């Protein structure tokens, strides 16, 4: 039974639950918008990285470089899209 639950994956699961609890503080505790957003940004990106490394085995094959380059590329485009949109359509008019 024990060999079915490798420590690495159990740790990944427990940490993702803990990070969810931390993120929930934003709702249950009273805090400013800036502090709340900072907490959410940190917990969300750590959780995403946890999934990638602990569960998705992103670095285990010989295609490691191509896989990481591609994922970073996707993330970079997504971030430019999100923050570029915010910059041109929202923040400029506040």
């Amino acid at each position: 039974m024990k060999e079915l639950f490798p420590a690495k994956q159990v740790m990944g699961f427990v940490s993702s639950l803990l990070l969810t609890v931390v993120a929930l503080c934003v709702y249950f505790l009273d805090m400013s918008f800036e502090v709340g957003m900072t907490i959410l940004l940190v917990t969300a990106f750590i959780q995403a990285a946890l999934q990638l490394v602990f569960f998705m085995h992103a670095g285990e094959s010989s295609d490691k470089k191509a896989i990481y380059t591609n994922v970073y590329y996707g993330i970079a485009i997504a971030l430019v899209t999100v923050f570029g949109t915010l910059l041109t359509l929202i923040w400029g008019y506040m």
Partner: protein
Amino acid sequence: MKLDKSQPLEYGTHQNQMNILGFWIFLGAEIMLFGTLFASFFTLENGVGSGPTGADVFEITPVVLETIILLTSSFTIGLATHAMRINNKKATLVFLGITLLLGLSFLSVEIYEFIHYYHVGLTLQTSAFSAILLTTLGTHGAHVTFGLFWGLFIFLQIKKRGFTPETTNKSFIFSLYWHFLDVVWIFIFSFIYLKGLM
């Protein structure tokens, strides 16, 4: 077909390795797809018109429930991949089955949520906010629905054929897809729900 024994079975052939790399490229495109949805959401979220805002309609209980269910299912599909690598067919099927049941429960909670939105007067046509909210949640939900059928067919194939280079490759790729859906949900949970409720 040359089988490389030094690798887990799902990487064993050149074709398998290319399938996995190809799927990662697809996931890169999916990251961008959800990036554009989030960009649109942040642009339109204040356009509520005379309709309800996020803070008016979001309920924390179903959202936390969905998050826990999806995180657990991401854990169990990881365990299924691990069980597959130690050649334990029964455990693989059990973990894959649990994953699919959790996916089904996630979907039930999400459907309950959509019905709740409908009853409080938030539909696709209510406002710019409601349109982009339901589009973003719906795109994720459609991915989960697709994954349920995909996972079911892989479950049946493993049950029938056991572990072959093909079935292990398929279930590894399915596990990548499922983890990815969990990652997307984490961002929906943080930047749509919690941000909206803050």
